């Protein structure tokens, strides 16, 4: 297989099955409620992503179990330090999805972690 640069002229229109669904988040609702329906709808996919990260870290080294433990024990406290409305929104997502608060916090600070 070879990789070559290209400049396509036929990619448009994209297949309609690739369209992204649009939802509404009402900022007039309390912060901890505004993501509830979306979080409940996507809880399996969110959990799948976070679980993958945990497994990936342990594949690097089982000695990194302490990092996984920190996600469950220390990261939940971090939600209280986020500026409004983000901390409450993240707590609401955790409640609506049933996913551990520390895991939802981890997901929301992905960018800061992975810029290394």
């Amino acid at each position, binding site marked *: 297989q070879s990789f070559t640069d*290209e400049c396509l002229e036929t*990619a448009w229109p994209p297949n309609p099955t690739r*369209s992204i669904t649009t*939802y509404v988040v009402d*900022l007039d609702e309390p912060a901890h409620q505004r993501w509830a329906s979306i979080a409940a709808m*996507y809880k399996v996919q969110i959990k799948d992503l976070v679980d993958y990260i945990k497994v990936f870290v342990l594949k690097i080294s089982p000695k990194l179990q302490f990092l996984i433990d920190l996600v469950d024990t220390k990261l939940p406290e971090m939600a209280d*330090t986020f500026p409004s409305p983000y901390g409450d929104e993240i707590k609401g997502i955790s409640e609506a999805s049933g996913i551990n608060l520390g895991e939802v916090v981890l997901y929301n600070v992905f*960018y800061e*972690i992975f810029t290394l």
Partner: protein
Amino acid sequence: CTSIVAQDENGKMYHGRNLDFGLLLGWDFANDTWALSEKLRPLILQVNFTQNGQVLYKTTTFAGYVGIITGIKPNHFSITMNERYGIQGGYIGLIEWIFNINRQQSFVTFAMRDMLATADTFASAVEYLSKTPLLAPCYYILAGPEAGQGVIITRSRKNADNITLLGKDNSWFLIQTNYDHWKKPPFYDDRVTPATNCMNKYGAQNVTFPSLFNVFSSRPVLNKLTVYTALMELSTGHLESYWQYCEDPCFPW
């Protein structure tokens, strides 16, 4: 990631991006894919944030993620953020935050949402994102509805290392990937040159959603890390996005 701001020959402004994420976070040898990218794709959604019954801003984001990576405030400005790597990466800011050493800094994607919620002009958005202290380095790419309103802000944690405006050297488009754009791109990941060639092939007379989508769908701008393409039209505030998948043969990044 690849972000493009372009102005057509009539001064109409467009902004688009490919979101690439998951590098080195697990290669699936069975399917030749990045495992994390595959996990992200089912989470993509567009969100219209409303206030008092009106759409305040629109985003393409991931379910469960409250920050913003791609967004548009209709009639005001659009914004995308590209990852900027560095040894002095965001984990240092994160440690400072967790241990309460310094909380006078913003999370990169929260700052974008703050700005979409509060800034009323392109200029005020640029000002805010140039000066706000951040936990991590990044590239902010903004466009406004008026001709010439395009900018790349290269951010370190404390300040802007570089601000490049559309129109410099008579340019009608700006392209930003994951490297400082004033330096030569690395040989192992040069998406700027192919994207530039492709934009020049279409020309300022053909800046449209179809042409931009074609550029974003061309390898290596499209690669194994690409999870979605978002397109924004500044004059209408229209945002549309599509999940992307790069069929083999395809560059891994």
